[in-house]
């Protein structure tokens, strides 16, 4: 049911002024229909609605006064202070032409806005140089008409590519029906949809057919802790799909908004198996999105402190030398790379020293050559990348244990 009404009053000004008061009961009014509605969904909380109507106006004269246009709403979440009225064009010979100036004054213009007390309505006093039909745009912010985003990702069997669908979910509990309305979320396609009251709409915003994806395995002792009491030196290994929001990786059309992502995998028999779900974070263009898949049961890593020595320099100043040994087994049929996150500051703290800011450290000569290093979050948190071979094809053969060492010295501690 429509609850937003624009009334163009056709009575004389004196009567209309009286109509603004609560005591006026007799009104004669025309009810211009909505010609067009545009809904802007850029902001998750405040939605901008712009509607165009054609309003008949009388010529403003000293005797009859100006036109009074009443805009009222009930049980809708319209922000009263946001309502704007803009005359756009005047009908002339069956066509609309832009508003023009006559003797230095626009031929149609808003003189003032009145807010009747205790009513969800307002009255625009509009000047018209001549009697005409004018196309006006009424815009306002409305609440409870909003959107969320969701994703559906289907990985191929090799987990190297995804088919990623991004949906927009429109949610109309604003109290108003908009009929056929143009909708735009600020990016992607524009939709022309019927938006009913208390209706929810789910629409495919974009389908990305070949999104390059990297499956990552992450070991972070200080964040995830012990795997279980039976394996006190092993820690949980978390699996993620890593996507880059750029054209090279099959995305890059617009920023990816936050939303729930449900992840499936091609089961190789024409169907899909459900892998899990995660909240996708806002990912700007060229940014990285990580979707959590759960804990790995196929890759096991044990972390052993092999060397732990203090070397005094002078006074209470010393260096702390450590060798951390990692024993890794990959029970997967495919090779993979394990990312080991070492937090050097936490290492120093664990052995009783405050590094006073980011720890200064240097790599030792016993560090395994197979390890590749990167520093995505700063030098104090190196990430060690270790390549692991697939398990032997012969099921009776034992899985090869990959052993690597990280030798480093934390400098100038006190």
């Amino acid at each position: 049911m429509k609850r937003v009404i624009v009334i163009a009053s056709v009575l004389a000004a004196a009567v209309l002024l009286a109509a603004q008061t609560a005591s006026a009961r007799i009104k004669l009014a025309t009810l211009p229909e909505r010609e067009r509605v545009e809904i802007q969904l850029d902001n998750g909380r405040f939605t901008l609605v712009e509607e165009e109507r054609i309003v008949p106006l009388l010529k403003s004269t000293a005797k009859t006064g100006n036109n009074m246009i009443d805009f009222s709403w009930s049980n809708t979440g319209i922000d009263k202070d946001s309502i704007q009225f803009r005359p756009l064009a005047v009908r002339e010979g069956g066509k609309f032409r832009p508003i023009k100036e006559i003797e230095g004054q626009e031929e149609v213009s808003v003189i003032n806005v009145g807010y009747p007390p205790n009513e969800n309505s307002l009255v625009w006093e509009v000047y018209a140089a001549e009697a005409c039909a004018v196309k006006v745009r009424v815009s306002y912010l409305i609440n409870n008409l909003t959107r969320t985003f969701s994703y559906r990702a289907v990985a191929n069997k090799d987990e190297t590519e995804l088919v990623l669908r991004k949906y927009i979910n429109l949610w109309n509990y604003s109290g108003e029906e908009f009929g056929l309305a143009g909708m735009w979320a600020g990016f992607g396609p524009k939709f022309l949809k019927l938006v009913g009251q208390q209706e929810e709409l789910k629409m495919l915003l974009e389908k990305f057919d070949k999104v390059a994806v990297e499956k990552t395995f992450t070991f972070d002792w200080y964040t995830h802790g012990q795997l279980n009491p039976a394996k006190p030196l092993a820690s949980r290994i978390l699996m993620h799909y890593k996507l880059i929001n750029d054209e090279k990786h099959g995305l890059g059309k617009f920023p990816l908004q936050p939303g729930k992502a449900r992840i499936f995998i091609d089961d190789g028999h024409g169907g899909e198996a459900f892998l899990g779900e995660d909240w996708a974070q806002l990912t700007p263009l060229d940014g990285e999105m990580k979707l959590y898949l759960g804990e790995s049961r196929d890759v096991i890593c044990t972390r052993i402190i092999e060397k732990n020595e203090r070397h005094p320099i002078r006074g209470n100043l010393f260096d702390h030398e450590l060798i951390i040994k990692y024993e890794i087994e990959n029970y997967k049929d495919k090779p993979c790379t394990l990312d080991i996150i070492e937090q050097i500051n936490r290492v120093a703290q664990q052995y009783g020293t405050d590094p006073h800011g980011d720890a200064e450290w240097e790599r030792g000569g016993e560090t395994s050559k197979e390890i590749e290093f990167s520093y995505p979050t700063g030098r104090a948190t190196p990430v060690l990348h270790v390549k692991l071979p697939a398990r032997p094809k012969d099921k009776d053969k034992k899985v090869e244990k990959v052993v690597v060492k990280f030798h480093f010295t934390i400098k100038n501690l006190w």
Partner: protein
Amino acid sequence: MKRIFITIIVLAAVSSVAGAKNVDLVTLPARQTVQLTIYNSEDLTLARETRYITLKKGRNQLQFSWANTLIDPTSVEFRPLEQADKIEVADTVFPGQKPQHLIWNIDSKIEGQVKVEVSYFTSGLTWQMDYVTTTDPEEKAMKFRGYVRVFNNSGEEYENAEIRLIVGTINLVEKIAELARRRGIPMPQPLTEDYKRWLSTGRFKWPTSLPRVRNLSRSPKRSSRKA
């Protein structure tokens, strides 16, 4: 008793609000196959069912309803298994007036019968293993039988279902049973403190007809099956 229905709305007027209609003429395509993948780490089952539907060229409306079941409405998906490049879901509408009900607006470039898959998550289906062993008199060998017991409290009967049982953990960010109790798409994020302050100024009036969270009144039904 079956509570999940898929219906093709015959009088599909493109310009009308589907949810506003109270009188529909519909056809009811029967379920051909159903596959249930039951996870035991979460109250989660992935159901996939195939049906044949007849489409006409242009816009078609397909209605799916699941009264008194525990289906997560956000998970319901429609997928054509034939001529997929000629059939497209334009949008999915959750009409406010009809809970546990959705309408797919489907654009078809073909006319005729097609096989489609409808998949969704439901809660209420669980499984557990039982073992029976019988040793020989010398206690050196034994017969070992494993039984799976499937419990169906989902509110829906699945006849001749192919059942897959999954061991291991799965990451869910929301419980399926909670989503099933909500209507349609989950509500957007909670209001910020600034916005709550703005609301408290009194210039804002909430709609009188806010969405209600509907409680499912279903009688618990427990059935078991040994395989």
